[in-house]
């Protein structure tokens, strides 16, 4: 989860999020260089004593400031398109989970198993045990097996919501009357936090998402006990 005053991304827990982090680093370096160059040029402009007020044409500099940005854009676009197509790759999910947004909680349905569905409400601050995360903990976490492709079908019962878990690189709108699909793989066991990401009323900030990934054996034990 995020720590206080965090500016950057959370650690990546899925291959797609790793790719997104790498792409972000690549783009940030390019932006860093462009910013350094622009600041340097501004400093030069402010400290020069040379002035020339009769410029009629400047073919050479116009060529440079047309071609260079085009090259920069291509350098950013190629990795971007690569990540975009990676996100759309077809894999064979081992499990399908439905997440349905309500005001103001989530329902998770495991239709691959009989009668396995539950609601996930935020634990109010006054009921929170010591050491737990305020406004992030829920009574029933969404469990899933690690290192297995998971298909998430996301929808809503009432108004727009959005199912988002930053460390997995997932954010999908929950639209009433529509099923949105996303797939991901969690590479490590752990607990990952997210929050509803589409304004949905008074308690929009109080319907968090908690995903717990387990080794397959433990997940099967949990699903057996729960269904």
């Amino acid at each position, binding site marked *: 989860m995020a*720590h206080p*005053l*965090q500016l*950057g*991304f*959370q*650690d*990546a827990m899925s*291959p797609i999020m790793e790719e997104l*982090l*790498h792409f*972000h*680093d*690549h783009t*940030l*370096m*390019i932006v*860093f*260089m462009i910013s*350094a*160059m622009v600041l*340097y040029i501004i400093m*030069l402009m402010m400290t020069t004593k040379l002035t020339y007020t009769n410029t009629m044409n400047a073919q050479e500099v116009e060529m440079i400031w047309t071609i260079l940005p085009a090259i920069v854009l291509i*350098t950013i676009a190629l*990795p971007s398109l690569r990540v975009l197509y990676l996100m759309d790759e077809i894999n064979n999910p081992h499990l399908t989970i439905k997440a349905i947004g309500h005001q103001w909680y989530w329902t998770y349905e495991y239709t691959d198993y009989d009668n396995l569905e539950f609601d996930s409400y935020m634990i109010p601050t006054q009921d929170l045990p010591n050491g737990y995360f305020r406004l992030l903990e829920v009574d029933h976490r969404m469990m899933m097996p690690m290192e297995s492709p998971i298909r998430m079908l996301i929808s809503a019962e009432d108004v727009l919501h959005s199912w988002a878990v930053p460390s997995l690189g997932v954010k999908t709108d929950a639209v009433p009357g529509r099923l949105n699909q996303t797939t991901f793989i969690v590479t490590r066991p752990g607990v990952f936090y997210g929050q509803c990401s589409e304004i949905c009323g008074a308690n929009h900030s109080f319907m968090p998402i908690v995903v717990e990934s387990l080794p397959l054996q433990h997940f099967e034990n949990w699903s057996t006990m729960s269904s």
Partner: protein
Amino acid sequence: MAGEGEPGSEKTFKLLGILDVQNIPCARESILYGSLGSLVVGLGHFLATSRVRRSFDFGMGGFVLTTLGCWIYCRYNHAKLRIQQRIIQEGMRNKILYESSDFDPERKQNSNRGSNS
């Protein structure tokens, strides 16, 4: 940014408060090579022409070009390496899963060698 965890749990040095040169792959090498390139180009131009302002301009340009060039080259190779690592991991996982079963590619290879000899 890549690999950012709890503050203070691992050393991070953020250049100008933005760029974490210790944890981002290729960042440290790019900045160091860029600084070296900037020094070489700027100093070289000054020694050749004795023009201070223009030498600074060349130094700045050298910094940007060397850093970006080194960065793109290193990241491209890093990406190829990551893809290879992923293929190897997948192969190892499949080897364990399929060992001695009909899907085991080694079993097919051995049977082909047996039939050829």
